């Protein structure tokens, strides 16, 4: 292959001029004449039956143009076909404090808020469940009648021979780990503008990662054909999974617009963002793992309980990812997993960056560190002794096509000064290592069908403008730029010549959305295929003119030329004119469907976890711990990420560093605090994401394993590094002060308590020794 001229080179994101000037438009920046403001009434009760809602007083206000209740949103929906258990506005029951009860559309925000105060709701309060372990025992007053004991889903998987595996172990540990609940906290609060058109059509601009699913859901709830609805994704101010399900306002705004026959915009407050939630659940991991004297993991068994909140959402997928990716990063023959997704009367959890893998990885990598210590082995070396040999299929049926983890470990060990530092830093300072991995998109779609997972169209017209039409959603991760780079590389033109039309259901083909790190791999491959077809058409026309074989041609530097004869050269514009004369307008379509071999095993729940390819990450964290206050300061994190091939190294670095940053927040400071179902910190002042002051130096190292099926060898970069950060920090704390923290976030109080407990035990041991003498 000819050397690459655009792929692999740093390129500023194509939408950055719009972003650095403030001219780019996010959903809440949009407004149209006659637009109404929508506001939502939220439940004050965690679990209650709605006896009645009186709206007459609100409707009597001249500023109020529509009021909607559950009667207007009777059709239930949910992101998974097996979980259509929520309504945009509650019909019979509310199930958490903040659940959506009614909505108004009024001429001003103030009037809408006054109207909410005039709505009279009669509730019958029901017993509520807040603790997942208690909720699982519930004999009555279930949150959803059809879910006995408030268990949304449970899965039980066993691969290999656990008894044999534990029998071979020289060291076995059993521990309980707990991870608190965290929120995506994307900087942009959700917003939706719904335009009712006089011909009865709806156009919806929304802050979504998944325009296609939103399109389907609006059609279902509004009982309109999809063909009468257009969903457009404007700039999205971060998602991280928080905009990867249909969020109530995205349905409520269209419902109000249809009722009022006027445009309606709803923008969430930050508090409403926390109540809409869909973040990472409280997770209890009971883990048992054994290693041989040589450090080979002989068996692992996990029992995981996730506190899913009041609705299904992505829940079953989350709990399946926790099991599927638990052991699959290493070569482990004996794996058991018991996963429970439990309902409670709190906002629904869902997908958040590193979906399902993060909390089990924290437990696993923490325990592996402890077992390495038991065996007297270096924790980095223990990881080296458990590596897979790609290509291979893991014990639970995941096909691994490329595996850069060995190089990731080498790189972070080298860059961090591991050999000089591990166990050798002064007391109070420590270093820890951990690994993680993630899917490059799900091999099986949420809604089973034979439809390609994504399609990209490219059009080249007489003006030689190259327009790429993609359904993929730019949410800050670089989706748009990735398409431009691939099309420009294949066609041999400057990136600036490629125009992109994205995420508009009327103009762009279906793409399943920006979640599970699927876009570069899937939409990238589709874009590559479409661009190759356009290039083939151009080459055919040029070959005919030159009287040469098309195989001799190359596209580069805005021209088409014969590789072996510099005299045969034509500019791209002229080549396009030739091709159009020859073919008519140039139009091509590329699509991507994961290969059959990548779709996993046949056991129940086997559909979640399989991916066409996996990314890998290794990290070393260095921390200092103040033994007087328990304060942990993360000093530095070195992260090496195997992304297959960095199509744009600036973007890959940004994704890796951003993942580490988010993991760091969960590791030491972020937690949603609950009191009887009420969120006590629903603001960015109290839910503290790391500012510059809490964020250490984060270094990214790109590892390129060149996946055989990725576009130019690329695989995911946006999520896989998050999960390693948390255990790397926890393991560094152990190295610094000799205590293991099994509960997230690792706050100063917990560190201090662990240090005191350790002192107490040491005193008792010393005292006992003294007594024996």
């Amino acid at each position, binding site marked *: 292959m000819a050397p690459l001229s655009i792929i692999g080179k*740093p390129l*500023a*994101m194509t*939408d*950055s*001029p*719009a*972003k*650095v*000037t*403030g*001219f*780019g*438009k*996010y959903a*809440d*920046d949009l*407004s149209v004449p006659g637009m109404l403001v929508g506001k939502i009434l939220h439940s004050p009760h965690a679990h209650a039956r709605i006896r009645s809602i009186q709206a007459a007083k609100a409707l009597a206000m001249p500023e109020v143009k529509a009021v909607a209740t559950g009667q207007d949103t009777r059709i239930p929906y949910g992101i998974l076909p097996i979980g259509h258990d929520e309504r945009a506005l509650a019909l019979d029951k509310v199930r958490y404090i903040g659940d959506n009860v009614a909505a108004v559309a009024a001429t001003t925000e103030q009037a809408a808020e006054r109207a909410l105060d005039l709505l009279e709701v009669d509730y019958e309060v029901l017993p509520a469940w807040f603790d997942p372990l208690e909720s699982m025992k519930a004999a009555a007053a279930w949150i959803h009648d059809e879910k006995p004991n408030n268990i949304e889903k449970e899965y039980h998987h066993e691969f290999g021979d656990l008894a044999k595996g534990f029998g071979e172990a020289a060291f076995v540990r059993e521990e309980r780990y707990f991870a608190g609940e965290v929120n*995506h*906290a*994307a*900087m*942009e*609060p959700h917003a939706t503008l719904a335009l009712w058109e006089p011909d009865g059509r709806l156009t919806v601009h929304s802050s979504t990662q998944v325009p296609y699913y939103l399109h389907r859901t609006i059609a279902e709830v509004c009982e309109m054909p999809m063909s009468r609805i257009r969903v457009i994704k404007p*700039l*999205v*101010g*971060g*998602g*991280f999974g928080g905009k990867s399900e249909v969020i109530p306002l995205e349905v409520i705004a269209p419902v109000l617009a249809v009722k009022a026959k006027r445009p309606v915009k709803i923008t969430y*407050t*930050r*508090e409403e963002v926390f109540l809409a939630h869909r973040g990472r659940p409280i997770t209890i991991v009971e883990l048992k793992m054994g290693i041989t004297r040589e450090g080979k993991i002989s068996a692992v068994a996990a029992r995981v309980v996730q506190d899913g909140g009041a609705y299904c959402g992505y829940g079953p997928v989350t709990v399946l990812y926790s099991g599927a990716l638990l052991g699959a990063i290493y070569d482990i023959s004996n794996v058991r997993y018991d996963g429970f997704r439990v309902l409670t009367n709190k906002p629904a959890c869902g997908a958040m960056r590193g979906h399902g893998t993060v909390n089990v990885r924290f437990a696993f990598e923490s325990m592996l560190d402890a077992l390495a210590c038991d065996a007297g082995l270096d924790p980095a070396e223990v990881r080296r002794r458990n590596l897979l040999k790609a290509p291979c299929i893991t014990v639970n049926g995941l096909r691994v096509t490329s595996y850069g983890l060995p190089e990731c470990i080498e790189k972070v060990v080298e860059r961090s000064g591991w050999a000089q530092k591990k166990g050798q830093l002064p007391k109070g300072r420590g270093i820890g290592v951990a690994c993680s991995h993630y899917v490059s998109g799900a091999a099986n779609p949420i809604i089973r069908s034979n439809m390609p997972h994504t399609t990209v169209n490219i059009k080249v017209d007489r003006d030689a403008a190259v327009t790429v039409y993609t359904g993929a959603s730019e*949410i*800050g*991760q*670089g989706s748009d730029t990735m398409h431009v780079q691939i099309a420009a590389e294949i066609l041999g033109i400057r990136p600036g010549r490629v125009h992109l039309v994205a995420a508009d259901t009327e103009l762009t083909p279906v793409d399943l959305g920006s979640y599970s790190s699927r876009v570069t791999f899937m939409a990238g491959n589709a874009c590559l295929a479409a661009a190759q077809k356009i290039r083939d058409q151009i080459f055919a026309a040029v070959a005919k003119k030159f009287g040469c074989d098309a195989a001799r041609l190359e596209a580069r530097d805005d021209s088409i030329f014969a590789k072996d004869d510099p005299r045969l050269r034509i500019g791209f514009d002229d080549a396009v004119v030739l091709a159009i004369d020859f073919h008519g307008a140039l139009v091509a379509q590329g699509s991507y469907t994961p290969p059959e071999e990548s779709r996993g095993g046949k056991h129940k729940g086997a559909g979640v976890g399989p991916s066409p390819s996996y990314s890998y990450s290794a990290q070393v964290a260095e921390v200092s711990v103040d033994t007087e206050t328990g304060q942990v300061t993360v000093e530095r994190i070195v992260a090496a990420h195997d992304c297959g091939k960095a199509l744009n190294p*600036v*973007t890959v*670095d*940004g994704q890796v*560093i*951003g993942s*580490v*940053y*988010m993991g760091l927040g969960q590791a030491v400071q972020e937690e949603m605090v609950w009191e009887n179902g009420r969120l006590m910190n629903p*603001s*960015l*002042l109290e839910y503290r*994401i790391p*500012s*510059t*002051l809490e*964020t250490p*130096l*984060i270094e*990214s190292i790109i590892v390129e394993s060149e996946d055989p099926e990725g576009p130019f060898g690329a695989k995911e970069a946006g999520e896989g590094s998050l999960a390693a950060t948390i255990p790397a920090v926890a393991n560094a704390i152990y190295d610094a002060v000799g205590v293991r923290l099994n509960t997230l976030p690792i706050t100063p109080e917990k560190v201090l308590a662990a240090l005191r407990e350790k002192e107490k035990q040491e005193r008792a041991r010393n005292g006992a020794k003294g007594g024996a003498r």
Partner: protein
Amino acid sequence: MTKELIQLRVNGETREVAVPPYKLLLDVLREDLGLTGSKRGCDDSSCGSCAVLADGVPILACVAIASCYQDAGITTVEGIAPPGELTPLQESYAAAGGSQCGFCSPGFLISIKALLERNPNPSDEEIRVALSSNLCRCTGYMQIYESVKRAMAHGAARVAAAPAPVGR
């Protein structure tokens, strides 16, 4: 409540708006003046996405009463560069990956502009402290620092290239 006619000088233009006395500067910018570059990311002045300059000093427009700023010159992100142009800071911000989702970028650019105007050569620690009132959820801040450093290098190059002041 009775509205009051106020004059604001925003990005060099004088604009007249009728607003209730409690109306926040951020809402006047976004709703009355159509300057949607400044963002609302929180409810409690904790995110910094709404930062604008009032006479060169960064303030949070989400907690500023609009009518109190009639005598100040307000600069929003839209006013950092003339239309169609980018300042070296904006260029470097784009090139170094300072923006991912971009929602916090207006606030950061305002804070950085204020920093570099009062201190053209800040240390790493000074940059870190100056940007501690702005939250970013995407970047982990490293590429934002890189943007600032590239902009500083550009500023230094420009100073070096400038002719020596006369009479020195």
